[in-house]
């Protein structure tokens, strides 16, 4: 409990006016200097995980993920199914699956079967195309995105934001297993 402190008193004597017929005589004045402390408590609640969805807007073509091509930015926007305004913090992209073409699987092995032996040595020390053939970099501009309750953020130049960048590594080995491969990306925040 806070308490009152440092009370100071100062008096200032003045001269009053006598009023005929009244008993008021010489009057004085004083200034009181009073202080008080204030206190209290408050609270806030941190949000829990909500069904916020990041929607990828950018579709990467086969010509954008080839050795020697610069990193491609993956743009996206959001859908908020929660009843409250939600925010998206920094987005971390990842590759959850690499799906080769049937021809590549036949030739180089299936990346979903790590023991798929007997195939020629592929890139990144594997027999097949894998996540090791790609570099994903988290976005630096996400983290201040806001979507109102039960709303989808409109796709626009102002709303869309980078979910990260992806580049196909230019490795010294044979990366033919990645030709035509499909990547499944996921984003977390």
């Amino acid at each position: 409990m806070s308490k009152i402190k440092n009370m100071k008193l100062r008096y200032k004597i003045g001269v009053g006016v006598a009023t005929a017929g009244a008993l008021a005589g010489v009057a004085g004045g004083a200034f009181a200097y009073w202080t008080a402390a204030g206190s209290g408590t408050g609270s806030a609640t941190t949000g829990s995980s909500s069904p916020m969805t990041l929607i990828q807007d950018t579709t990467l073509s086969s010509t954008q993920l080839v050795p020697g091509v610069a990193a491609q930015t993956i743009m996206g926007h959001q859908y908020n199914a929660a009843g409250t305004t939600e925010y998206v913090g920094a987005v971390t992209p990842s590759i959850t699956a690499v799906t080769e073409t049937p021809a590549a699987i036949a030739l180089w092995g299936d990346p979903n079967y790590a023991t798929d032996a007997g195939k020629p040595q592929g890139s990144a020390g594997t027999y097949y195309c894998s996540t090791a053939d790609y570099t994903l970099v988290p976005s630096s501009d996400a983290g201040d995105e806001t979507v109102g309750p039960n709303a989808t953020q409109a796709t626009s130049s102002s709303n869309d934001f980078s979910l990260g960048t992806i580049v196909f590594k230019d490795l010294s080995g044979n990366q033919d297993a990645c030709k035509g491969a499909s990547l499944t990306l996921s984003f977390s925040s």
Partner: protein
Amino acid sequence: MGRLTNLSFGARAVAVVATVAAAGSATGFSLAAATSSNGSGSGNSGAAAGAPSQPVIGSSGLPASPTNDTTAKFSYTDSRPQVSFVCSLDTAAFTSCPSSGISYSGLGNATHSFRVEAQSGKGPTSTPATYTWTVANQPFTISGTFTAPLAPGSPAEPLDLSITNPYSFTMKVMSVSVALDSTSKAGCVVGDNYRVSQYTGAAFTVPANSTKTLGQLGVTPLPKVWMLDLPTNQDVCQGAGVKFIYSGSAQNQ
């Protein structure tokens, strides 16, 4: 309610109300907020014929108004020697009080009124001299709940605090601050995950006996609260309550 000390009891003569002309001049005082009165105290509309002149309350040592002090001491004199005095605090009946003065202690947070009358023998009493002042020694209250979403990377949102002025006079708030205290979840360290910005504006006033938000008072910039977006996993903070401690200072205008 105050407690009388140094009080000697005695009979008080009933004053006979009469209209008289001015009985002469007297010396008195007044305070900026406190009030004193010669000839207009409640309970008497005038002094009876033959009554002593209105006593004068001494200005030395008077309680300021407002004041944090829950004690008060009064001295009083009368132009006529050998008179006795009767005193009253607030609504209490007049009782004999020593000519050397009277002290009160344990005064509550309220506006108090001290009255003193002079009496010669068992004759009629004079018009009362009155002094009114306000005791205010309880803290004022700051409250407020942050309702905006709080999540990693959430933007700083304002915390519109409410200030309750419990006093009967306008209060000038000199400072308000918000401190992070704790979270409701172990492992979610409040200082690591949350931040507040302080109110840095000028002093502002809150009307007497009222509760106002900073927004209602037009006070800016409001304190703000946000959650940091750390490179580490902050899932432990999901659903965590965050407690704030508010503090401030005020003075009379």
